[in-house]
């Protein structure tokens, strides 16, 4: 396996970085958040033009057939700039679900997503988190010419501006059966769909969505027996989310090192106090660990060899190491680090959000241990 970026990946990453440095600096982002806008359509258009929206999709649907490593190359700067746009939710979750489907409706919808004309959201997590797709319990009852959806999805990222929802639901069995899951395309304006929107702590727009007897025609079922599709799609999205987190961690390490080298107390830069300098060293160790795990797991995935424990190790590490770095960055900044005005806390909140999505580090470490102890890994 090769772990170094190709020249193409370097170029891709550089061009994303340049775009964001130009148009998405921290102040600009904060102004957008304060204005209440759920995203910047200009950035989305720019990403579409650069081919980033189509990056992970096959060429047949207008994509570029990019690898996991390609996606990671762009997701790191997304994290370093705290992007609130629905790249993960519309492209890597909803979009990839549609891409796995051969239903005409799915393909038609996907085409609009790839061009950036429309966005989609992935309505999947339930309760306080759905670490394993087998835990989905939202009911899709067979009805005349289709299905009736009833239940609730929570923390649907990018729901506010989404033109369509990709909803995981259960046509038979009960959680935690892996069998009986399907994916449906649902129009958010359809009768019976209630959306309670909010902003997440990391600035993304999201919603809790209630489905109250929502009628779905059969041709809007885009996958049945969907557990494996869900696992594949979510695993790839997890790697991308982890890349965002690693991007945020890198920014925290850099900014905190700079701050500690310039901020003076007791007549000297605080980086000269050994407690601070060793904390910086620990941040760097954590960052090197996080990035090593990310790059290695990415290469495993591109080699078709990333199993569930590999993804769990990555997700667990990123959540743990990210928290460590974020908390250390805030403590090192002191009062300033507690304010909404500097980016430090925002990076930390991005990391915390990523940790909570799709099973937190506690869940994933335990899943790894369970698999090992019962002979699975």
């Amino acid at each position: 396996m090769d772990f170094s970026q190709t020249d193409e990946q370097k170029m891709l990453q550089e061009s994303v970085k340049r775009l964001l440095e130009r148009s998405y600096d921290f102040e600009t982002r904060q102004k957008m958040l304060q204005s209440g806008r759920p995203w910047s359509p200009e950035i989305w258009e720019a990403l579409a033009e650069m081919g980033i929206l189509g990056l992970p999709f096959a060429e047949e649907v207008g994509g570029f057939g990019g690898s996991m490593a390609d996606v990671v190359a762009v997701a790191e700067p997304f994290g370093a700039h705290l992007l609130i746009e629905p790249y993960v939710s519309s492209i890597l979750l909803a979009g990839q679900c549609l891409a796995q489907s051969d239903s005409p409706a799915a393909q038609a919808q996907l085409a609009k997503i790839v061009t950036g004309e429309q966005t989609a959201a992935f309505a999947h997590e339930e309760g306080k988190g759905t670490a394993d797709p087998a835990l989905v319990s939202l009911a899709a009852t067979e009805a005349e010419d289709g299905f009736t959806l009833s239940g609730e999805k929570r923390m649907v990222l990018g729901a506010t501006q989404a033109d369509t929802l990709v909803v995981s639901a259960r046509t038979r069995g009960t959680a935690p059966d892996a069998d009986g899951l399907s994916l449906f395309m649902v129009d958010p304006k359809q009768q019976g769909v209630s959306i309670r929107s909010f902003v997440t702590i990391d600035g993304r727009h999201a919603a809790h969505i209630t489905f109250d007897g929502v009628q779905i025609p059969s041709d809007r079922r885009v996958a049945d027996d969907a557990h494996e599709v869900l696992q594949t799609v979510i695993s790839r999205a997890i790697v991308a989310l982890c890349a965002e987190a690693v991007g945020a961690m890198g920014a925290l390490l850099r900014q905190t090192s700079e701050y500690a080298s310039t901020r003076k107390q007791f007549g000297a830069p605080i980086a000269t106090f050994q407690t601070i300098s060793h904390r910086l060293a620990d941040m760097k160790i954590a960052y090197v660990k996080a990035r090593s795990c990310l790059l290695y797991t990415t290469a495993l995935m591109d080699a078709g060899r990333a199993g569930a424990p590999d993804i769990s190790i990555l997700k667990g590490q990123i959540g743990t190491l990210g928290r460590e770095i974020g908390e250390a960055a805030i403590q090192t900044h002191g009062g300033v680090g507690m304010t909404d005005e500097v980016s430090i806390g925002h990076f930390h909140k991005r990391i915390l959000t990523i940790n909570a999505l799709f099973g937190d580090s506690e869940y994933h470490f335990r899943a790894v241990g369970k698999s090992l102890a019962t002979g699975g890994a």
Partner: protein
Amino acid sequence: MSSQTKEELDAFRAEVAAYLDTAPTDAIREAGRKTTSAFAPFEQGAAWQAILNEKGWAAPDWPEEYGGTGWSAEQRTIFEEEYRKQDLPPLLPNSLKMVGPLLIDLGTEEQKAKYLPRILSGEDYWTQGYSEPNSGSDLASLKCSAVADGDDYIIDGSKIWTTFAHKSNRMFMLVRTSNEGKKQQGITFLLLDRTDFAGMDVRPIKGLDGHAEFCEVFFDNVRVPQSGRVGAENEGWSVAKHLLKHERNGSANSPVLVRYLKRITEAAQDETSPFGGKLSDDPVFQRDLGALHADVTTLAQFERLIMGGHEMINDPALPSIAKTMNSELIQRVSVMMTRVAGLEGLSMQLDALAVGSGVDPMGSELDLISMPFYLNSRATTIYAGTNEVQRDLIARSLQIA
């Protein structure tokens, strides 16, 4: 040792419990449940203090002649325990735990008569003007200056992390009155009768949790009377050190943590573990809860030893040990709370958090406060002397010269 019999103490406990069951308004109770910081929501905190003051219970720690209760250590503990069986807002500490005790010790009779009653009643809120943008851990390097002019001082500079300055009507502060000698010399302790003197400008600073709890205060040729000075000119450092003693050694910090842990434990009865079953039955949850509960219990044990006058009270490092233990435990409890909240902690719900908004939270009330509490509690290891500074002080007590 206690002068009360067990029966007397039981009767006292019943009296306190009965009072706390009826005295707080709904808004005060709501503020208690929605407290995510050492500082309760301001208005309800003040209202609650006024009610307690009518009962004569606003400041159990104070000497009786200044409005204290005259309770024994056991009674104070009982009051704390009963207080923490309910989700009542903590009283705002600056006035009751800092300025009040300081004035009682070092204030003039005029200052005591003027300020103490209004502190007890909650009419006055005192914000603390210590830190400056370039003077945090190194507080003694502060530069905000006060130049004597007739009977007044003229203040120039700025103060930061002044909690609730935008809601306060009074301020106590450290100013530089001399640049001679060591930096600790030349500092003076001032009481400001108002926070809207001409030339004062208060800018609230939004925190990570979305709330403006602290502020920056700018002074541009602000004229204040010298009569607000506590102690002599250039002796403010020792006044502040005296006050810190009260801040750190004030009262029991464990009851609120016990209460939070209880809320977490109760919430876990209603949650499902992703590995199946109730979260409260999950062995990993139980182990982590047990380890945390053990540390909270040990903080309580430590505090009771101190209140009971154990000889370790003579250790100069004690306030730093207490501050370090307490602040780091608050953070750990807050992490546990976010673990139980899961995804539900990710939504910003400033409206639901606002007392009296009538907006229902999207999850439980514990979910609602979990993330703001976690984020806010990152400050506990920073304020009142960073834990780095505290550990320096603790280590100093171990030096074999």
